[in-house]
């Protein structure tokens, strides 16, 4: 659909019944892959909701007290234990990488190959730093005796939920990082300018893929905000 015909459609709330009552597409001018990513993220939201609700239920029904999180998650900085220090840096890095991702999408649509590629790389590196710091945090906790089945600070479920949920989120970040690197390469190679065909799917490349990847990346960041709130602040 050309942009001019999109302009003639109703705006605001009126567009909802209009689009749903129309033929061919329910989301006007939305590329298939983008719509798919939204639905997938909705489904993924249910996964993380199930995890976090299970965590709340699990935490509420343990027989032993939950560990004191500000003590467990503190980091010694110049001999002084500072609660939430590492997590604050991790969160800052991840949120910043969301910003670079958003800029990458903008430069992608402007067909500014260089800037787009650089920003995707910056995002990927931000993700890598996050995963690295998470690995550091895990190994620190493991050194202190925290295991998935037990820990010296309190209820064994603390380690179970912590490793499972941050692990599941970390897997999401890692998958995102892998795709960011792949897409950085594709951008530098000019796949999106020439419409080079995908290796597996044989479909033409398009800059909209970067926005789709961006949706995923922002989602992973948003989920982290909830994990942060539920694990570290509660």
């Amino acid at each position, binding site marked *: 659909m050309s942009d001019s015909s999109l302009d003639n459609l109703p705006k605001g709330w009126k567009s909802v019944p209009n689009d749903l009552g129309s*033929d061919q597409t329910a989301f006007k001018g939305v590329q298939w892959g983008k*719509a798919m990513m939204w639905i*997938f993220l909705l*489904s993924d939201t*249910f996964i993380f909701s199930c995890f976090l609700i299970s965590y709340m*239920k699990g935490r509420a029904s343990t027989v032993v007290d939950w560990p004191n999180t500000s003590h467990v998650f503190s980091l010694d900085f110049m001999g002084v234990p500072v609660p939430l220090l590492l997590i604050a840096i991790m969160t800052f890095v991840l949120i910043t990488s969301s910003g670079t991702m958003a800029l990458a999408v903008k430069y992608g649509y402007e067909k500014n190959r260089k800037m787009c590629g650089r920003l995707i790389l910056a995002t990927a590196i931000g993700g890598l730093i996050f995963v690295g710091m998470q690995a550091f945090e895990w190994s620190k906790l493991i050194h202190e005796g925290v295991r998935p089945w037990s820990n010296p600070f309190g209820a064994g*479920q603390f380690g179970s939920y912590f490793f499972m949920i941050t692990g599941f989120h970390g897997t999401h970040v890692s998958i995102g990082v892998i795709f960011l690197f792949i897409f950085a390469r594709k951008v530098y190679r000019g796949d999106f300018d020439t419409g080079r065909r995908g290796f597996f799917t044989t479909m033409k490349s398009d800059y909209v893929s970067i926005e789709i990847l961006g949706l995923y990346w922002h989602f992973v960041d948003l989920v982290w905000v909830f994990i942060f709130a539920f694990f570290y602040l509660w």
Partner: protein
Amino acid sequence: MSDEYEHKLEAKSDYAGDASSVSTPDIDAVPDAELPDQELYHSHSWWTTYVFSQDAKYIGIQYALTAIGTGLLGLVLSWLMRIQLAWPGLGWLEPSSYYQFVTMHGMIMVVYLLTALFLGGFGNLLIPLMCGARDMAFPYVNMLSYWAFVVAVVVLLASFFVPGGPTGAGWTLYPPQAITAGTPGYNGGIILMLISLILFVAGFTMGGLNYIITVLQLRARGMTLMRMPLTIWGIFTATVLAMFAFPALLVGCLMMTLDSLLGTSFFMPAMVSLGETLTHEGGSPILFQHLFWFFGHPEVYIVALPAFGIVSDLLSVHSRKTIFGYRMMVWAIVGIGALSFFVWAHHMYVSGMNPWFGFFFATTTLIIAVPTAIKVYNWILTLWRGNIVLSLPMLFSLGFIVTFLNGGLTGLFLGNVTVDVPLSDTYFVVAHFHMVMGIAPILVVFGAIYHWYPLVTGRMMNETLGKVHFWITFIGSYAIYFPMHYQGFVGVPRRYYEIYDSPYVDVSTLLLNKFITIAVLIVGAAQLLFLYNLFASARLGKKAEKNPWKANSLEWQTPQMPPEHGNWGKELPKVYRWPYDFSVPGAKEDYIPQTQPPSEIIGAKVEKT
């Protein structure tokens, strides 16, 4: 009556006049194409044509055959269980085998047969064809979806060959017993079961994204959502449910896998097992039940909604009548789908949860009966004064209405806490859910296969064999499940390996068990007849004419039948109406296909859709 039609015709031409300002209004106008024609994947080798096919029709057939093959195993397991129940003195099965067969039968039938067949099989075959698309939105992902399903099935079947055999925890897999010594397959089979389910969810997600996007974004010109066949509405809504329900299953499976492999205590309380205190402590078994049923109840509708949709189309086509209350049917499907997320704990009345929950969930359960009843009324009103043809699809559809009504009514019993408490874990429950989500959807599956078989193979299935199959299946199912209702009322508990002569068990129970088993063997054998018909007709069946049922929906309007790669030849179809214009007054034929433009049927008093 005719005035009203006149008025509608006038309104129609007004509408067409608005569309083009030229003096001769183009009544055949449809909106312009919004998107360029879909680019198709063309296979180059034997592997990409027949094995890793990316053609949705072909994937649909692959899905259907794999699901039916797995379902056949579920059928054989039910035979073995029934023989054990009828003649416990034979020592036919070990107690552990009995529980393993119960578990595998349940899981196979619900997930690997019905879900995969309705969504993977009929979804892939019908969504692109009925919406007027050339293929699914993402053919490559669609292919991955099927192969993930195959791997899930293989992992599931592999559990028969590990030490300890498959899990015997019952299809609900409740911990702590599922992963505690004493339950068959507690350390081998259960892990494979959980991994298989995780794979199934992953594979289904890939397929489900395809189904949703194809319905939302790939419809033909003129195909509005309210012109879609109800089959598509059913499959679409069921897919949306699955996308939101399967996450809970995935999370539950993952957590139980960790409990079993890593020794975490998500679901495991402190326990003494075989005289030893286990290391687990402080977990919540009820949490698993909540996760499982948050998936499990929508799952019932994931199976039922496609059946509702398909049966509506079959009834309309084979009684040559407009579906009664199309819009109400659509809203009922959507409403049932939404409500299905608020009823899950009615499976847990006896689990020990807070009794106030039971009050809430009994209320929501009764509310969901309202849209369901609307659907049943509308099916009956569709038949009313219709030109009913007792073809095979019609027979199975009629069988479905009766069976579904029957199972639905016992659902009202079990939905009320006070009635459920004495009846829970008896054969009444077994009879209820087999009627409502076993027999009823399976009857629709058969009807749908007889109906769409010519679309796939270009040939008709044998009518006589089909009728024999129908009557044995239909009467046989009642012979199996009616006595079970009675057994439940006299208090026979389910999941007992042997019901022997004792003062607590009525002698009629023992006789009925023999009767039921004989019926099961006969009904099962009739399914082999069906399978013979299914495969033999592909070669020996009567050649089907184009559009053999004189149906209106798009899948029968392809240039070739069976449709070839890309479905539509050069031009995509244009849609002018809904698929239910049957026996329209003033029309030459008793059906008006969706692709027939208004200019060709001037004088016919069609409804404006």
